């Protein structure tokens, strides 16, 4: 595994940890004393910090460190996690997420981010100070985790207030025209260098030593009023290939231990150096060595350095320290065991597999066709056996990509919390169907539209408490997130029990914008759909939450890009439901093949309700666009006319394929029914991006190309056409009446 891969893993893990941290923090808001949650938050921060250090992501390490220090105190029960602190920690977790994003891009945080981080750090420091004031004494008397801070022993306690900077410059730093000395000189411009230790240990023997390489390492005690960002900025030019660690004043032993372990030099030597430059006391070094020993386990004692031994002999090691170390080690082991249950696979590999399965499907259907043509029964049987297996492989492969949507849903607890805090509304988020699975890419891409809908629901949907009370509703608003499977797709609902959409306001706005002509009769659904028009907003004030230029049209487009649809159901005074329908997967589907005028078309099998023969005479008469199906009137879409196909009609009878999507039905008039097949959907090229009604293509076993019909769009078109024709008919009949009336009047 190279560094880039490792970094990737680190980012993925850290994001998962942040997620846990956030969930735990939200839990803490309701139950501030929950020890499990406090531990979860601490563990997340600690692990992220530790791993970030491995990658030299010092800004993350430094930032996390502050949060960790606060959490550590909370963990020990020394500091209460009140609402304010939880909120602050949530902000910190957000900032960490941002830092991770930046790290993922391989960039460095810009000034804004650094300033934001510094501001958060300052606020955290306030908590630490508040804590420090009253309770400095117990620290020294040797609690389970002794701290190195101002209360440390020794006459010059001030010295311990200094920062500790550990520098290992990249080998090429000199060649690149930068002199480590100048960095130290620069540090001295905004602080006092208390002590410097230069470590030449890394320098090879003279024969191998390249005088243009920098082999020296530096441990610096530095006293300054500047913040971490300022110190860090000193090393901006060398940060990339250098290992720079900055420990703020008042670090715990564990931090120094981590520092020592992360450095290349020998532990004891470093320990002595740290003692030498006043970072730690000999007693503390002793404890560090003890912890190391506990962690190192079976290493032989002979190898122990004399200094360490001496201290170990002189001072009895505190058993709690060892216990703590052992517990941590156990925890790490447990986590490793859990990890082994999952396999981290690169998404590309999975996609490749799915592609191959797709090709296999095509190849196999070619084989089946050949066998059928040769009327070779035995081969056909064998092929169908293979086909069944291929189908199973396809299903399990597709399932590999499926993830539960619950994780995405849980993110919204935070959104709802923040928005309800901002708006001062009390809102509960109810999540249902979190275990519904859908494609990973979709889960990733549905997040933003969902966020928008949830924000809208909280900001605009739920009324203020007084209004709610007036309407006889509970003061606490409810927002539902619901997911379930329905006819080969997944439905995600965002619902609220608020006031519902304001039909009049929407209509007025639409008329003002000229989207709708005055006097147009619109159905409820048509009115609701107006809010998806670009730039449409009925709210005049631009609140902090919505109205930031991301309109509902963007939501709709994002959903359509996933081949999904969004519908609205709204009842005045009772609430609004946004219903998003998405196809289950995007790559391979069970399709139904049919032909029209020698061209092949495929519809997803789940959408097909039934196939019927077009009754003689039915539909032929006046090119009617509707069909009487056992007394039910359905729109009928004549594919030949719809796509303006010129080929000859094939087959004797004409068939109607009845399809259903989102509760709407329509008949598709085709020539021949060819039966079901597994279709590997290939996207259409950019040239066809404007094509409506076709969502992709697939290759048949015979090598011919079939187009995949976009049923939702076709349904819409069929309904529109029917509406149009009906309107025309009504219009003409009205005119007839008028004509008749005039005629009567004339007489």
């Amino acid at each position, binding site marked *: 595994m190279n560094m880039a891969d490792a970094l990737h893993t680190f980012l993925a893990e850290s994001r998962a940890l942040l997620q846990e941290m956030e969930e735990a923090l939200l839990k803490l808001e309701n139950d501030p004393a929950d020890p499990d949650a406090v531990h979860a938050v601490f563990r997340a921060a600690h692990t992220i910090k530790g791993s970030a250090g491995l990658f030299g992501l010092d800004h993350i390490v430094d930032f996390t460190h502050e949060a960790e220090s606060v959490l550590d105190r909370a963990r020990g029960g020394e500091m209460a996690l009140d609402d304010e602190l939880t909120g602050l920690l949530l902000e910190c977790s957000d900032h960490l997420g941002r830092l991770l994003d930046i790290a993922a891009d391989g960039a460095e945080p810009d000034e804004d981010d650094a300033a934001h981080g510094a501001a958060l750090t300052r606020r955290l420091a306030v908590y630490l100070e508040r804590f420090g004031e009253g309770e400095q004494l117990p620290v020294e008397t040797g609690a389970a985790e002794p701290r190195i801070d101002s209360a440390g022993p020794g006459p010059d306690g001030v010295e311990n207030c200094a920062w500790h900077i550990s520098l290992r410059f990249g080998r090429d730093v000199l060649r690149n025209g930068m*002199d*480590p000395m100048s960095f130290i000189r620069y540090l001295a411009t905004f602080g006092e260098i208390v002590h410097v230790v230069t470590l030449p240990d890394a320098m090879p023997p003279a024969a191998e030593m390249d005088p243009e390489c920098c082999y020296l390492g530096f441990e610096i005690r530095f006293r300054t009023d500047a913040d971490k960002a300022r110190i860090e900025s000193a090393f901006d030019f060398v940060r990339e290939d250098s290992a720079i660690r900055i420990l703020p004043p008042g670090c715990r032993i564990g931090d120094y231990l981590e520092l020592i372990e992360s450095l290349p030099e020998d532990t004891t030597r470093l320990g002595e150096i740290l003692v030498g430059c006043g970072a730690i006391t000999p007693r503390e070094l002793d404890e560090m060595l003890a912890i190391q020993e506990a962690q190192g386990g079976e290493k032989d004692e002979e190898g122990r350095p004399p200094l360490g031994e001496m201290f170990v002999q002189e001072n009895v090691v505190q058993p709690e320290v060892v216990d703590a170390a052992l517990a941590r080690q156990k925890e790490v082991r447990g986590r490793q065991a859990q990890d082994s249950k999952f396999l981290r696979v690169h998404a590309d590999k999975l996609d490749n597999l799915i592609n191959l399965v797709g090709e296999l499907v095509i190849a196999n259907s070619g084989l089946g066709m050949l066998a059928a043509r040769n009327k070779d029964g035995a081969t056909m049987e064998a092929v169908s056996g293979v086909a069944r297996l291929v189908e199973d492989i396809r299903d399990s492969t597709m399932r590999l990509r499926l993830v539960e949507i619950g994780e995405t849903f849980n993110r919204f607890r935070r959104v709802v919390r923040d928005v309800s805090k901002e708006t001062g509304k009390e809102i509960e988020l109810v999540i249902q169907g979190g275990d519904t699975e859908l494609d990973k890419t979709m889960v990733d891409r549905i997040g933003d539209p969902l966020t928008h809908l949830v924000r809208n629901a909280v900001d605009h949907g739920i009324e203020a408490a007084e209004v709610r009370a007036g309407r006889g509703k509970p003061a606490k608003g409810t927002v539902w997130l619901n997911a379930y499977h329905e006819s080969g797709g997944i439905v995600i609902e965002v619902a609220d029990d608020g006031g519902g959409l304001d039909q009049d306001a929407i209509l007025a706005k639409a008329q003002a914008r000229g989207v709708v002509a005055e006097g147009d009769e619109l159905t409820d659904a048509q009115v609701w759909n107006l809010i998806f028009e670009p730039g449409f907003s009925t709210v005049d004030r631009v609140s902090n939450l919505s109205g930031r230029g991301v309109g509902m049209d963007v939501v709709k487009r994002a959903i359509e890009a996933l081949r999904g649809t969004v519908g609205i159901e709204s009842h005045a005074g009772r609430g609004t439901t946004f219903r998003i329908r998405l196809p289950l997967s995007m790559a391979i589907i069970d399709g139904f093949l049919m032909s029209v005028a020698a061209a092949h078309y495929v519809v997803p099998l789940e959408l097909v309700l039934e196939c019927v023969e077009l009754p003689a005479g039915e539909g032929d008469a006046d090119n009617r666009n509707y069909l009487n199906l056992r007394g039910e009137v359905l729109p009928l879409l004549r594919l030949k006319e719809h796509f303006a196909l010129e080929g000859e009609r094939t087959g004797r009878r004409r068939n109607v394929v009845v399809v259903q999507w989102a509760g709407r039905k329509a008949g598709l008039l085709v020539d021949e029914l060819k039966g079901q097949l597994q279709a590997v959907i290939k996207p259409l090229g950019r040239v066809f991006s404007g094509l409506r009604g076709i969502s992709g293509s697939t290759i048949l076993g015979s090598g011919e190309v079939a187009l995949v019909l976009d049923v939702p769009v076709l349904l819409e078109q069929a309904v529109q056409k029917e509406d149009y024709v009906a309107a025309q008919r009504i219009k003409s009949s009205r005119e007839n009446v008028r004509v008749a009336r005039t005629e009567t009047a004339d007489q």
Partner: protein
Amino acid sequence: MELRPKKGKGAAGRYRLEGELTIYTANDDREALLKALDGPDELEWNLAGITEMDTAGAQLLILAKREAAAGTKTLVFTEHSAAAVEAIELLNLAGHLGDPLVLTGKEKTT
């Protein structure tokens, strides 16, 4: 940097370092300094002529010291110039180089 052997009686192993001891000259300096280590067991390098010294230079001095120690020779730096003292002070190498004379040098310049 130039290495000038001292002349006169008992001058073997005594050199005077002249010029800059920096990254720009580091490659040549290394060769020159290592060569200068060949000689009697008692070596003395006079640093008074060092006009400039950076991390690369300091690194070379550390290397020279270490090489000398490895060959069980004693290498002493004397009469540090201001530039040398500044660098050695900044990196806090006085203790490491273990030259009592460094301190003398420092006293001289300050």
